[in-house]
């Protein structure tokens, strides 16, 4: 790889633009797509590889090419710069996520509490309008405060976010569901919310809850059954992780 190709590839990635490295195996010749003009067959393969998030080999004119997609990172937008967010922070980057924390309460969203993260101190409705969650985004609300959580959930439900989770007990969630209905969300939309948030591992401490949330996000991202939205359970028996948070 030429140093110049590496520098261009890294610049695209740093700018969070999707980029595909195309390598001819016979001699190591390389192109970047979509930045460089390449034959249609390679461009099609590059587009496909980005969509599938998987590297692939293609043959063009008898030559083997490796198509190596580099998507921008998945994002986790967390509302609430609380203890659980602090525990999630060090897990995010190694798992391949950029974590962004939204909290208008200045005492919470500080670089001292959350070093190395992107912090947004706008109100959640403004923050969500700016962050524009997409199909590569997860949204998690952790404040317990409807004034902060509800606008974020409202925006998340209107987005293609691949995961939406909300901290809080089943009782809290039932009240939240009523409020979201008042905002015009139907049952199918509301069923997208994972609540109580996180896999049921009987988590008690903030790091345990953070682990359960991160595991559920990974499961959703990878298409595991554990990460699928859970139908609202009528049972009142189970103590949810949200209660202990």
């Amino acid at each position, binding site marked *: *790889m*030429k*140093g110049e190709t*590496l*520098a261009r*590839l*890294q610049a695209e*990635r*740093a700018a*969070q633009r999707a980029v595909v490295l195309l*390598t001819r*195996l016979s*001699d*190591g010749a390389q192109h970047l797509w979509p930045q460089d003009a390449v034959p249609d067959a390679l461009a099609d393969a590059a587009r496909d590889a980005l969509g599938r*998030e*998987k*590297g*692939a*080999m293609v043959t063009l004119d008898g030559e083997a090419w*490796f198509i*190596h*997609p*580099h*998507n*921008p*990172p998945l994002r986790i937008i967390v509302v609430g710069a609380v203890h659980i967010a602090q525990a999630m922070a060090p897990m995010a*980057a*190694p*798992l*391949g*996520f*950029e974590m962004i924390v939204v909290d208008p309460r200045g005492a919470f969203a500080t670089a001292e509490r959350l070093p190395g993260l992107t912090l947004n101190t706008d109100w959640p409705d403004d923050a969500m309008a700016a962050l524009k969650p997409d199909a590569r985004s997860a949204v998690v609300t952790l404040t317990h405060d409807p004034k902060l959580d509800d606008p974020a959930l409202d925006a998340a439900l209107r987005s293609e976010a691949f995961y939406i989770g909300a901290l809080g007990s089943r009782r809290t969630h039932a009240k939240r569901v009523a409020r979201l209905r008042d905002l015009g969300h139907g049952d199918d939309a509301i069923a997208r919310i994972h609540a109580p948030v996180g896999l049921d591992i009987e988590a008690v401490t903030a790091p345990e809850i953070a682990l359960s949330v991160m595991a559920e996000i990974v499961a959703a991202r990878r298409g595991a059954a554990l990460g699928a939205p859970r139908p609202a359970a009528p049972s009142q028996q189970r103590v949810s992780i949200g209660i202990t948070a």
Partner: protein
Amino acid sequence: MSTDTTQSEDILAIAAEWRAAGEQVAIATVVETWGSSPRPAGSRLAVTASGRLMGSVSGGCIEGAVADAAWQAMASGTPQVLDFGVSDERAWEVGLSCGGKVKVFVEPLT
């Protein structure tokens, strides 16, 4: 910093840092897998002539052999394609016991 779809460490950033520090560097990339190979296509290993390794192209089974090829690629300036698999005697030598097959592209960073 953005991340790869297949690994969270940014091996390219590490390779660039090593290069900037005056090291000779090669990059190995898994380009094709069959069966139960441990690392998906796109997984990278960076190697320096001085013997530093970062990243992985298998569960540790073939990294030594890949590093050897990386040193050759750095010396010759020419990329190489390496095949490892159960049908390949070399794979047994280097211990790819998982039953999978992998194709690895090794290129010098010039």
